């Protein structure tokens, strides 16, 4: 098992290096003067520019610049935002929990609804239930996520008034951010009204963000289950007289979960893409929103740092998924 883990770790090192290269290259590929881009100052006099050039190390050879960049990154220094002058790393760390909270609930929603839906569709193949599940999921991943979010707001917030339109929590609550996870922090503060407010603010963004992963997971579960249900060991399990639910859940689903886990893992990348759009619509204070504002306001340190960190995140999650896959599938473990 340890060998398996180490082998997987070794594989991602080149990818990490590639990502840092990309982030590094970003600054130099952006049109305009790198000094202006990094400092945010325009129309400097030549003396100041020369001084900043030297300060930023832009007069050194590219390879040296890259090495120094990597060194900085490993120390946690990703520069400062041009708009807030706050450290990029610090801003990311502050805003990150909001995105994680949203993404986690969206993924939970997608799995808890998608997997049973897929199982239902497979077990009741070619009936109305099957067509309904497949039709809904096809529609689900054919929709632009931001439009779906707008529709949800239109229906639930504007027409029905059930849920709030934006934000993480009602404005009147000021909860000290201990973990950064609103649900946890409100509970810690013992403020139940604030907790309920946080929950209600979480509902629509979760549904909006989780819909596409839900659709993909439902489809994947259905097709994996259909494959598995045809297998000899499922027939043998039925021949042994095992009750139907046991055959479906303990045996079929367990085996079907192997490709499903892979798909669930792949959703993380999708979730982060979707989070960017969802956070924009719901004014959710997470890293997606932060990144977009950075791009729109040409805050290049933010763009560079954000891309690097998010990419690193996705790689790490894919690694965890790979490891989970090894746990789920004993054959891989011993290979």
């Amino acid at each position, binding site marked *: 098992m340890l060998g398996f883990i180490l082998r997987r770790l070794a594989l991602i090192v080149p990818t990490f290096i590639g*990502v840092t290269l990309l982030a590094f290259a970003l600054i130099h590929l952006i049109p305009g003067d790198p000094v202006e881009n990094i400092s945010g100052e325009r129309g400097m006099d030549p003396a100041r520019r020369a001084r900043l050039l030297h300060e930023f190390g832009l007069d050194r050879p590219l390879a040296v610049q890259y090495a120094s960049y990597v060194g900085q990154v490993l120390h946690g220094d990703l520069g400062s935002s041009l708009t807030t002058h706050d450290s990029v790393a610090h801003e990311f760390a502050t805003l990150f929990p909001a995105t994680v909270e949203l993404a986690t609930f969206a993924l939970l929603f997608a799995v808890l609804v998608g997997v049973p839906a897929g199982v239902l569709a497979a077990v009741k193949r070619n009936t109305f239930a099957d067509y309904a599940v497949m039709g809904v999921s096809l529609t689900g991943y054919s*929709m632009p996520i931001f439009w779906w979010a707008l529709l949800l707001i239109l229906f639930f917030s504007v027409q029905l008034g059930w849920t709030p339109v934006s934000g993480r929590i009602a404005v009147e609550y000021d909860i000290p951010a201990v973990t950064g996870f609103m649900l946890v922090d409100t509970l810690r503060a013992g403020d139940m009204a604030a907790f309920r407010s946080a929950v209600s603010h979480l509902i629509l963004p979760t549904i909006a963000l989780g819909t596409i992963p839900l659709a993909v997971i439902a489809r994947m579960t259905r097709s994996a289950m259909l494959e598995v249900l045809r297998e000899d060991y499922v027939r043998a399990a039925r021949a042994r007289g095992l009750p139907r639910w046991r055959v479906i859940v303990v045996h079929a689903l367990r085996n079907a979960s192997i490709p499903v886990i892979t798909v669930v893992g792949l959703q993380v990348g999708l979730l982060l893409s979707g989070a960017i759009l969802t956070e924009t619509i719901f004014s959710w204070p997470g890293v997606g929103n932060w990144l977009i504002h950075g791009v729109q306001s040409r805050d290049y340190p933010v763009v560079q740092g954000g891309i690097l960190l998010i990419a690193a995140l996705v790689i790490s999650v894919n690694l965890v998924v790979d490891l989970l896959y090894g746990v789920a599938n004993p054959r891989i473990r011993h290979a």
Partner: protein
Amino acid sequence: MRETSAPHPNPLSAARGEGAPSRFGEFWRAYAQNRGAVAGLLIVGALIALAIGADVIAPHPPHEQYREFTLAPPVWHAGGSLRFILGTDPVGRDILSRLIHGTRLSLLIGAISVAISLTLGAVLGLVAGYFRGLVDTAIMRMMDVMLALPSLLLAIAVVAILGPGLVNAMYAIAIVLLPHYVRLTRAAVLAEAPREYVTSSRIAGAGALRLMFATILPNCAAPLIVQATLGFSNAILDAAALGFLGLGAQPPTPEWGSMLASALEFIQRAPWVVTFPGLAILVTVLAFNLMGDGLRDALDPKLRRSTA
């Protein structure tokens, strides 16, 4: 045992008549079994027709602003009129006309992005799969890096470098789609290269280029075609997302995503500004997805999902 009597003529061969049915005929029959796929094809056909005839079909020019009729509701609301069937947007432009012209844009974006990506991806995949070794590793590592980024993030990075705009958005989307085609082609090449027909071609003196493009590539065509169709839907969704974020098509271009960009503030007053552009995206993407699924089921029986 005594000699058996002459074997009965195979009744099947008598019925076949002229000869085996054409490959396209077989393919069409398999494809047409899937009603959703046929529906998708019809919708795409209608969209193409709409795109080509946009100038003639649309009731109004897409950029024309009717200042007295800003935020006019659709015809079935109180205050709506047949003049603006789906209503107007905040500056008085007819939504229906903008949607129709947007069809042309979306289909173009999809076609160009996919074409660029597919061509480049197929070439890279062929090269990587055929030559193996260092070239293969280098290309695949690059693809891994690109795949490590969520697609929208990568697109945003590219647009950050190139600047906002429709054309740059197309390049960005092409780059985002690229790794999928490279991987696909490479996997197909790896599967086909050891086969006998390739070896016999090589023995007959075919050079690397000829082997790659004339011999191997046609046999990898099927999965590429399926991915291209599904890539269309991704391209349209990504273009819309970029447009929505203000990083793609710029106003006043009637791109569906950018039409939604400022919609949030009008969501209470004029929900039709929000609903229709998104609906257009949904229908188009759905149609391409249905087509792509149908193509996949029809072209590769091994991948055939369990329908019917």
